[in-house]
């Protein structure tokens, strides 16, 4: 299933107001590394359903959000819990790395 996409408003609401433990992947269509990483997340989402949120931001569409974090490249996966940033993973990552980070975030 494709990941739920966030825009400026829903980012505020879901990440900060709801404070859900979750990750947000910043990606773009023209990036083949993203095309590999996003499916990894899509599969994991299934496994973590109800325990951990998975979201996506398309940086071409959400330029303000992208600019806010001053990233230098995609994909970038950032992790949040209780509205606090918990760290990130950049570039090509395997599902194990994501799962490790998820379990650290949930701890």
């Amino acid at each position, binding site marked *: 299933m494709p990941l739920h996409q966030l825009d400026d408003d829903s980012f505020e609401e879901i990440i900060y107001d709801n404070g859900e433990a979750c990750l947000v992947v910043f990606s*773009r269509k*023209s*990036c*083949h*590394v*993203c*095309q*590999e990483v996003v*499916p990894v997340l899509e*599969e994991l989402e299934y496994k973590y359903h109800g325990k951990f949120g998975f979201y996506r931001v398309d940086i071409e569409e959400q330029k303000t959000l992208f600019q806010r974090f*001053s*990233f*230098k*490249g*995609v*994909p*970038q996966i950032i992790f949040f819990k209780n509205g606090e940033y918990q760290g*990130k993973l*950049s*570039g*090509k990552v395997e*599902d194990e790395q994501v799962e490790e980070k998820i379990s650290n975030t949930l701890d």
Partner: protein
Amino acid sequence: MENCYDLLIIGGGPAGLSAAIYGGRAKLKTLIINKGAVGGLVNATREIVNYPGYLKVSGPDLMKDFKKHAENVGVEFLKDEVISVDYNQVLKTLTTRKGKQVSAKAVIIACGSEPRLLNIPGEKRLRGMGVAYCATCDADFFEGEDVVVVGSGDQAIEEGMYITKFARKVTVIVLHDEGVLDCNKASAERAFNNKKMEFIWNSTVEEVLGEENVEGVKLKNIKTGSSSILDCQGVFFFVGMIPSTSFLRDSGLEIDQKGYIPVNDLMETNIEGVYAVGDNRVKYLRQVVSAAGDGAAAAVAAERYIEEIENFNAKVLKSDKKVLLLFFNASVSESLQYGAMLEEIVSECSDRYEIIRVDTATKKTLAKKYHIKDIPAAVVLDKGEKIKDLEISMDKEKMKFNLFS
């Protein structure tokens, strides 16, 4: 059996997809296991101008066509990564990261290669914060900035030139003496004429500097040994590819020091029923077209091989006679004489036995299955079950006794 196939292909790049198309068309039950996006390395190539039939095509588009073709002939796909293999049985078994086990009569290895990491300080820490491996993905983040490209092969130079569309300046760090690049001549010439491109010769990158973002690189001149710092906001590494074959290290498969798999014309490896194709194998040219060619050859070879083992199985299992498996090797003249003698005995004396010759030079798996160490050797089977090892003697009378007592 659900997880049992005729043909398993590890890797869904052009080599794997071509093999699958041939396999599918030969009505083999075929599965591609591929960990990333189907299409492999080609997905990272913006433009392909040397694949026959296409004047110019984007890598991902070409691979979409390959994939469609494979799907069309009934190939199955599994998105997973193979992490270990067992080639010791006639039926080969693969285990995936997600814990799945699948087996097949033949396996084609088409895992391609992955970018080499230099493992220098800062490379990992600053990944995504200025350290990049993909120009198409990230070049435009460096608009108006200074970028360093490490390497001087085709990829480094071509990607470097693409980056100049965005960056203020691209500095290429080259190991060799002034004027020497590893890439093709045409690219080198264009690079030298590109005013935004600069070269630093005889040098390597020792460290990527920066706290949160890349701020520079530490260079080392390998001739003089002196170090210097070059300010930049981005570093792209194109320092070559390494074959993705490390998971095969302990499988008994022959792999050379660099990680490539030696094969013969039929793409056969040292293990029967296992083939290696595309960028994985020892070869002269690593391109899409040659990868595709490899895939075709391997699939056809596999098809024959499968046919053979099926024939063998049919013969052994369906035979109402006992089967005499006769192991020989053309280089051991004794084994040939012995074979001739046995055939003579069987044709003279009885119709209780059917003889099947097994060439140990090619059918290693069978030899292994029946624990054959020395040849000549012969095994007696009944309904596929082994009933005895035949004691070897060059004395015809004694052999008759062994066979019929």
